[in-house]
């Protein structure tokens, strides 16, 4: 999970914790979010299936971590 936090930390505009909704709270903008997703897919060597994903989940660190571990 530290790796994810690190990736987000690079682009964060304000403070956050692992349950903060990063988009709704304005921690990262939409362009950054797309870059973060690409970076995570690459680093963790996963391909996330967005058709089935709950948007509320993928926009928190906890949720992202869970999704990566399932994939």
């Amino acid at each position, binding site marked *: 999970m530290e790796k994810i936090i690190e990736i987000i930390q690079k682009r964060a505009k304000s403070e956050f914790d692992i349950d903060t909704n990063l988009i709704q709270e*304005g921690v990262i903008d939409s362009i950054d979010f797309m870059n973060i997703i690409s970076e995570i897919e690459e680093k963790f060597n996963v391909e996330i299936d967005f*058709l089935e994903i709950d948007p509320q989940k993928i926009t928190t660190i906890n949720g992202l971590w869970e999704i990566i571990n399932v994939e």
Partner: protein
Amino acid sequence: MLNRIKESFKKYKDNYILPDITYEKFEKLVDKISNNLVDEKFIAVIGEKSFELYASLIAITIKQKTFIPISMSFNKERIEEILKFTNTIIVTNEAKDYIKKLNIKANFIFLDQLKDTKKEYKIKSDYIYMLFTSGSTGKPKAIPISQTNLLSYLDFVIDKFKINENDIISQTFDISFDLSMHDIFVAILTGAKLIPIQKTYLFMPNKIIKKEKITIWFSVPSVLVYMDKLKLLNDNFNSIRLSLFCGEALPTYLAKKWQKATNSKIYNLYGPTEATIAISYFKFVDTNTKIVPIGKIFDTQEYLIKDDELYLSGSQIFDGYLNTKFSPFEIINNKKYYKTGDLVKQTKYGLEYIARKDNQIKLNGYRIELEEIEAVARENGANSVAVFDDRKNEIVLFSEKKIDLTKHLPSYMLPKRVIIVDKLPLNTNMKFDRKKLKELLWKK
């Protein structure tokens, strides 16, 4: 406007304006808020795509006052600029914590503290709403939109797109963006239902579209960029009958993908805030251009093209900015035209957008669009901003990556220097801040 809204409330009282709110219930809240206002000409409202937010805007409208929408992404400085026009901010429940943190001095109306009273007001305004330009140059300009402006727009689009009480309309735009006024007022005047789509869902709206059976989709083209990246455009959204895009250039390849996913009629709309929401449309067909044309000016409005710049006239054009003496108008043949600052060209498909006039330069006799250089850099994988250094008479490119454009641009368009930056600065509108980079260049 007042009568049209009241008629609608009566006629459609059993319809749903939101998934769980009927027009009757909506009217009750509107009525209550409208009796808890203060007697000022302008009243600000802060909130995010909610029942209370929409009701607050309409409450101000029916008391013939002007609302100023405040987005929950505005900082203190920007809100204080707005408070030069009014002392009062209506705060919806979702915005309470946000406004407390900002520590702003104003008269707040909290929606959980409304009283059961009747109130009459003396001060009335001709303007329905007022918005501010993004202010890429100088301070934000205040744009007031009148009843006539807004009704001209609404009557045209409701008729053109045959919008009716069976429609289920997406609400994707932030309220500080005038395109949200389309969603809200079109729904209210037709008895249609609104589906608010919050920021988090805007990347992945596929489930909401299906669940709520949205029939009219309206968003910025960026939403398609995200959906495409997340491979969501292979899905099928067959409830959508009409798709509208506005606010940025619509790339043809995305319009094609969306057409396949929805089988809907797609219209690309264009219009500056000063001309009320949108003033031209193009019914999408593949024109073999990278960007979908902006098409035809609404039949009810007028235009001309002078030195490539689009000039607009008619009932949708605003009266003028309220906080600056700068006039964007020119009288031609006894008619007042608004100079858009947008460069266009007339083609067989109607109008095509070229660039902003501010970003067009002349170098060695060539006319060059800085945005075109950036577009080529983007195609080659680099985010960049081109800046013209007037003192040295040369083009400088700020880029997030090393890039060689010699093979991709004619020599007269080539930047003299490329300056690598970690991250390009963004302005409040989330666009790259050309002005800031130019200042940086001059300081060096």
